[in-house]
């Protein structure tokens, strides 16, 4: 019951930028740690630089909260060495959706108040 409650909390609570970006990185499928780091750097820019220690600390807590789960498979680039891969759980996907909706809502409010200029279409 306690596990279920903590999973529910994790799904409903606003996410930290690091957790949000890790979930976002995993939205495209399972990844190992370094791939997540690169994806987070690409999505979050220089403001969200994440090293291995920070990443695995977050992954540990996110695994405990039921947002991601760990899998293991042979590294294609490294022969028989196995490495850990992470993938979203259902709860993680819902938490990511919830946070994205919250951000969309905040962005909409910011635009309405003139804090952020409306986005332009892609340049032609």
């Amino acid at each position: 019951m306690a596990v279920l409650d903590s999973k529910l909390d994790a799904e409903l609570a606003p996410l930290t930028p690091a957790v949000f970006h890790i979930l976002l990185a995993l939205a495209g499928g399972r990844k190992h740690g370094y791939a997540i780091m690169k994806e987070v750097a690409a999505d979050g820019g220089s403001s969200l630089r994440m090293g291995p220690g920070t990443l695995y600390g977050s992954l540990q807590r996110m695994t405990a909260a039921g947002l991601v789960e760990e899998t293991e498979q042979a590294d294609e680039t490294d022969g028989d060495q196995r490495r850990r891969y992470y993938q979203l759980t259902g709860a993680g996907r819902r938490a990511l959706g919830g946070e994205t909706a919250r951000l969309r809502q905040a962005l909409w409010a910011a635009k309405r108040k003139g804090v952020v200029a409306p986005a332009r279409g892609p340049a032609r």
Partner: protein
Amino acid sequence: MRAPQKLSRLILAGYQVGLYLYPTQFRDWYAGELRRCALEMMEESASPLRTGFLLAEDLLRSLIKEYFGMTLDRVPQLVILLTLTTFIAGTAANISHQVLRMSANDPQIQMAEDAAQRLNAGENAASIVPDRKVDMASSLAPFVTVYDDVGKPVASSASLDGIMLSPPRGVLDYVRAHGEERVTWQPRPGVRIASVVTRTASGFVVAGRNMREVEIRENNVLKLAALGWLAVNLALITIWLVTPIFGGGKPPRLQATEELEAP
């Protein structure tokens, strides 16, 4: 070997040593992955030095986070341990205090009983009181005082400022009903008397002595108990803080991993 490669290897070796600073559980579980990430970062980096700084900063930041997290998780353990040591130290101090306090009555019990027996046998009050006079405030010697049935002193080997004193009225009333009472009373500030009050056929006998030395010993025991409590708790807190570095085991494997590994 080119200089940047040498530097990269040196930084990675330093990082590997740094991994030992993580809590055991975290280290056992993630050290391999952390090493591999650092290696991949270094391989793709144009500047080993810059990557080295990034790794060092990340190591420091995540170490603080991991220890802070573990410390918060383990606060209930510490609270239980500190409560236990406080209870043990308190009980030990209380037992020692009681033993000292009870031993403070040792000669008085025998003196009061003997005096009561002699009075009941018909001896004169003046004859059962020791000849040597005692100043209650300054002497540690035990004394005997005989009172009549209303609590008026009849004969005494002790005085305070030249006056023969009576114990509190309530004490005599209690002894009148119960036969004996062991009580500490304070005839004036700074003078505490451990006394045994016994009922006789014609009144009461009080055998007492100044508690100055007993109180000094009680204070010493209290100080020792407090020092012991402090030392044990400091040791416990230190062990509690450093245990994550040396102790702990691997977390259980995750079910998802086992499912994938199953044939």
